[in-house]
């Protein structure tokens, strides 16, 4: 994807504060600002109306010892301190990182492979693309229930398959052991999220001109080199955006774990969102629940800042 050289706002106005810029701006500049303001207005209004209050309220709640129906008193950071010493929360944090890292990498690798293969395909491309999108379209709750049925220790079709393929000689308890349960949860997440990667990356691939590939081939690069030296860098901006969304969605995943395992067995699959739900809703400790649910914010924020920085850097170049 070739990005035309452009100046970022910062580069355009070095060392000038916004107010100062406002005063010094020319008429055309001001008109452009006004236009930008008008364009941004609908989005900002919607977000201000519906996100600002819940978010502020959530942060405030995390500093209270409130329970359902009772506002409670201000306790500072005590909820966070309590979480820090909570063995289940530590387990949860560890689970979330493992889950996000493995699932995202798998989705990226698989999605990339599928996108490359689809791009090479001449016929059936449209049909395959549509059918690969199915796991992403089906309501998560329902597909997860279907997986739960496929993982059922007694009726598992998956057991039948791996048994008859000769991989195992006893049943696999897909959601029973701590490792097995995590593997199964990751598997479902990858199944569900891979199409998003594949299709978005495919769209990116289609914008890369075949000429570049051919030129590289003539220069004697083999397929592997062509991918790493040509395709991968060109695809980077799209990949980063897709990764960004995927990391956030995976990190904050709720439905999948809630339905498959409820965080069990023995908390080995709890994620931030499910544990926050357990504390906040099922034990009614709203303050602590808000703290648990906001505890993932700094991590996410770091990830986002890094990725946004990376995306912007690519643009400036």
């Amino acid at each position, binding site marked *: 994807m070739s990005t035309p050289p452009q100046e970022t706002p910062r580069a355009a106005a070095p060392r000038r504060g916004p107010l100062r810029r406002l005063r010094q701006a020319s008429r055309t500049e001001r008109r452009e600002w006004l236009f930008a303001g008008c364009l941004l207005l609908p989005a900002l209004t919607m977000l201000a109306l519906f996100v600002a209050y819940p978010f502020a309220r959530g942060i405030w709640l995390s500093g209270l010892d409130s*329970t*359902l*129906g*009772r506002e409670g008193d201000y306790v500072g950071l005590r909820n966070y301190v*309590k979480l820090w010493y*909570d*063995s*289940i929360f530590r387990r949860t944090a560890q689970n979330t990182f493992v889950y996000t890292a493995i699932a995202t990498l798998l989705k990226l690798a698989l999605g990339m492979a599928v996108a490359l293969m689809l791009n090479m395909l001449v016929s059936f491309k449209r049909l395959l693309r549509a059918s690969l999108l199915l796991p992403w379209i089906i309501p998560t709750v329902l597909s997860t229930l279907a997986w739960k049925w496929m*993982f*059922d*220790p*007694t*009726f598992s079709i998956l057991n039948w398959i791996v048994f008859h393929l000769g991989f195992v000689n006893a*049943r696999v*308890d*897909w*959601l*029973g*052991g*701590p490792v097995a*349960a995590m593997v199964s949860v990751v598997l479902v997440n990858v199944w569900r999220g891979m199409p998003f990667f594949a299709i978005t990356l495919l769209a990116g691939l289609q914008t890369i001109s075949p000429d570049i590939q051919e030129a590289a081939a003539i220069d004697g690069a083999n397929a592997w080199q062509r991918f790493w030296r040509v395709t991968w860098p060109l695809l980077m901006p799209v990949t980063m955006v897709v990764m960004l969304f995927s990391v956030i969605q995976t990190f904050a995943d709720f439905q999948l774990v809630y339905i498959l*395992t*409820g*965080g*069990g*067995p*023995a*908390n080995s699959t709890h994620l931030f969102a499910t544990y926050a739900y*357990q504390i*906040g*809703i*099922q*034990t*009614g*400790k*709203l303050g602590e629940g808000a703290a648990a649910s906001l505890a993932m914010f700094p991590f996410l924020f770091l990830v986002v800042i890094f990725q946004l920085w990376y995306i912007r850097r690519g643009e400036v170049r």
Partner: protein
Amino acid sequence: MSGQRARQTAGIPRRTFLKAAAGTAALTGIPGILAAGQAPAYAKGTKLHYLMQLHFVPATDKVFMDQAAEFGKQMGVEIQVERIGQNDVPTRAAAAVEMKSGPDLIQIQNNFPHLLADGAVDVGDIAEAIGKAQGGYYDLPKANAFSAGRWVAVPHDVLSWAWNYRESWLREVGYEKFPDTWEGFREMGKKLKAKGRPVGCAFGHSTNDPNNYCYALTWGFGGYEVEKDGKTVVLDKKGTLEALTLNTAMWKEAMDEGGLSWDDASNNRAFLSGSISVTGNSPSIYPVARDKFPDVYQDMNHAPMPKGPAGRFYQLPTVSVMVMKHCKEPKLAKEFIRYFMAKERYEKWFETADTFAIPPTKIWYDHPVWVKDRKNVVFRDVIKDARWPGYAGPASRKASEAMAKYILVDMYAKAIQGASPAEALKWAAGELRKIYGA
């Protein structure tokens, strides 16, 4: 008297009618108004929103909805009954309490009324009246609806629970009767598993079956979460350790090793399919077997919980009804509860539930529904030995928290997964101390 009421009485059997008459005498208020044919004093458009979980026995929902519609017609108000999945009720209830809007009445499971107490109206007047008219409450349903000195909910029913087993398969390994002690239970399980038909127990994060089994087993060996004071954690004592050791041994010797991931539904299916021979459950397997699995139906029976050194105990799921503080017509809401809990209407509901639901009050103990099918008789007695989470202390918010976090279930699961019983116990006691110490 209106024609409506005449039609209603014509439709019900005589015995029911007699009881209905008695109920009317005992509960003054709405029935009196109805009898006098007075116009209800509610503004047009008055609406009550009742949130409940889908009942496991679908026919009971029909009975309830009809009664709600009837009440609405008589009072000239609209009753909106909303039914959702069991696991989603707490979410909705929490949102309703915090938003101070939403359903006016919420039917909720287990000890949730303790957690939602701040959003609920005191319903002591009708709870007491119903208890008085119907022979008094059992301990468990009261414990789950009575929080910090006041009735925050009206007990509606208790879900019965017992061991389901295959008679012929037990006979094959030499048991004419279901064992009455935990040691006997273990022996039986060993022999059954050797035949490839193990005992099925759930240890996943699921509200009913895992908790029912784990609490009952712990109590049976004299293990308790806390002392009577409701503060001192005493879980890490000999009793719990014995229960934990026994269960860990049974897991390998006697149980279906898929149970770690089982939820409330898994054992139903496993039992119906014939892959396990014994499992603890509400009578939701039995009716399904009757309709769809005749060979299982013929062969199955129910048995009570084995006795431990400390005795026989049950942990049972309960259902209670709360009137929310944001309800604009709390009086009407209470009248509605009084209406469907009145003997003649409650009886119809309870009969339809077919031993699945145990009434919270004692008057129903001799009801013919219990002896209609000899295999279901056991269900009527389980309530007598039922305790509440947090026993020997009082039921409380903290006990609810311990249950919602699955501390006890996870303790057993950890031991199964390879932690030593002592280690698992230490973890659980530590978690409980954090909860009760806070």
